[in-house]
């Protein structure tokens, strides 16, 4: 395998360029996937026998839930890279990921509540998955709060990295404990896991939407990291030479 110069893109300057080229096509791809997913989910997939049309919420609920977890894992991954290799870009990527991840976690809770109310009669049912999602949301907020509170960017990167790693390691333990707690108290009678038995089209719809969310997250992280790079590297020569930094040029 030809040696890929990964470290070439670890420098903010090169990453800035790469992100600048990539985010737009990714954004359009995300939009296309979302349109396709919505088409399949809302126009093609059949009505569910038990849940009627209400089950269609899963075409948003499941993808955003998956993404909220995947993004946290990505943050933990970049956290490891940041601490082990002391790469500036890794810390910036973690911080660029956090708001999107937090948003997906919030949306998972919102859509979960709106799904639970008609199906199980309550806006919040304290089932294992929703409760774990709530705790994941708190983990995101903690990360964002900590990194915002620290003024020195290097310390903020590394503190955030440690928080992300510790959080990621704890998520399985937290999930296990919440599942235990839930079955002990409710006897596994209520669970949002009892999704309707999946028709092929339903699965396709979910997959397309999940891909759409993933590509959207990629595009958003690349776009957001560019602003972060500009803020961090404001004193560098290459920033002063950028076309968008010349006077009189629209952003």
């Amino acid at each position, binding site marked *: 395998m030809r040696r890929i110069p990964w470290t070439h893109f670890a420098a903010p300057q090169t990453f800035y360029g790469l992100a600048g080229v990539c985010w737009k096509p990714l954004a359009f791809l995300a939009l296309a996937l979302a349109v396709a997913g919505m088409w399949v989910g809302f126009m093609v997939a059949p009505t569910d026998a038990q849940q009627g049309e209400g089950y269609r919420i899963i075409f948003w609920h499941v993808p955003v839930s998956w993404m909220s977890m995947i993004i946290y894992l990505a943050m933990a991954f970049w956290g490891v890279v940041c601490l082990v290799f002391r790469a500036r870009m890794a810390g910036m990527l973690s911080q660029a990921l956090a708001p999107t991840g937090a948003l997906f976690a919030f949306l998972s809770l919102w859509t979960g509540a709106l799904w639970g109310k008609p199906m199980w009669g309550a806006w919040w049912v304290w089932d294992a998955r929703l409760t774990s999602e709530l705790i994941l949301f708190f983990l995101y907020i903690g990360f964002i709060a900590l990194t915002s509170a620290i003024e020195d960017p290097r310390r903020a990167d590394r503190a955030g990295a440690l928080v992300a790693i510790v959080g990621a390691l704890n998520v399985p333990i937290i999930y296990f404990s919440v599942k235990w707690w839930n079955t002990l108290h409710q006897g596994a009678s209520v669970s949002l896991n009892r999704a309707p038995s999946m028709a092929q089209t339903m699965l396709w719809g979910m997959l397309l939407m999940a891909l759409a969310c993933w590509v959207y997250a990629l595009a958003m992280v690349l776009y957001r990291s560019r602003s972060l790079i500009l803020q961090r590297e*404001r004193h560098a020569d290459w920033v002063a030479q950028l076309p968008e930094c010349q006077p009189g040029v629209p*952003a």
Partner: protein
Amino acid sequence: MRWESWSAFWHMGGYAMYVWGSVGMCMASLALEVWWARRERTNTLRDLRAELAAQAAALEGEGT
């Protein structure tokens, strides 16, 4: 086509509030996030340009 009419589509078999409440919140939030990110970039560039202009002016002042 799954739906007999557009109004049936919006009605969502009685689950309109829940389904469209979810879809609407998702789309609105993501649009808000996009708007916020764009605004952040605009502000960053604006501040950066002001800073660079000030530095350039200071340098010219020293040069004379």
